[in-house]
């Protein structure tokens, strides 16, 4: 097969993962709740929940 006959995959530009903080925070919070307990850190993090939503 000659190279010019090959349909090459279209490159995709993937933006950096800027949602990691928000995503992991939501998981940490939900898992803490699902276990029916909240660690000291999660209780503190809960206070920043709104700020995360605004800044993420």
């Amino acid at each position: 097969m000659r190279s010019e006959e090959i349909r090459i995959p279209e490159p995709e530009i993937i933006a950096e993962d800027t949602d990691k903080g928000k995503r992991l925070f939501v998981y940490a919070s939900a898992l803490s709740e699902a276990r029916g307990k909240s660690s000291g850190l999660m209780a503190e993090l809960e206070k920043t929940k709104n700020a995360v939503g605004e800044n993420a």
Partner: protein
Amino acid sequence: MEYDEFKKMFMEEVEHEIKARIIEGVTISNEEIRSPEGMTDRLIVKMENSNISMAFRLQEIYEDYDGRLDVQVEGLVDTIQENMNVREKEADVKSFIMDFERAKDHLHLRLIPGDSPALSDTPHVMIEDMALVSNLDIVGFAEDGRTCAIICDALLAHYGISKDELFEIARDNSVAMEPLKFEALEHKVASLLQEEDIYVPVDMNNTAYIATNTSGFNGASVIAYPDFYEKAVETMGGSFYMIPSSVHEFILIKDDGGINAKTLNAVIRDVNKNTLKPKDRLSSQCYHYDAKTKKLEQGLKFDKRIKEKKVGAR
């Protein structure tokens, strides 16, 4: 504003802005295209004398809409202008992709949803309902973000190597350049939020860990590293559930009887629906790894099996 109405208005405004800025040789259209996460509705920007086009995710633009359409339109047209030199780079990108000797050092593992339409002509290995593919990082092309291409069947044939060889190269590169990394979930959240005044207990009794690679990019593929499960068992202190939180990482939860797959699946579905961007979604269910039997299976199947075992023992 409904999505269809937004899309129509947005595309008209983009077209208007392109004309206003006198950007020549550019046409826009709307197409649904095949993406790793499924079919996606895109605004396609085609450039004269070029086979490479830009494809913007319209659904994500709609989700970011906060009433300032003009700001979004200007931002997108800025991006188009900034990337007009893609035509000059096209030949370089093509030759890079086609040249196995240059490409081989930039092949990495990538985990995508197992129902991705991209899999129809792509060498892949299924891991439960997820698919492991080989991803080529195209270096020095994009200034913001990374440029990648998933290796398709035709390209594999052109390289003249087998599927096994392709995955061996991708795995070796990934292990060497993007080593496996575990981090306690709560510590990671705290550091990402950069809240210096947050109280961090000395003994947090961590039961949840993030498993990813060093860059945190496409890091969910670490579950295909040869020593992943051995190191994970060591970190978790035994069996664990695996949450596919995104294509970038897994969250591991110690199987200490305090949580079950049904609950975890409800959390996953909720986060997938309300928080995660479609391009980052990996799966909608958890998995379980048994440290004794060294078996990976869907979380619900594991729970059902254990329940039946308990009933049978009575």
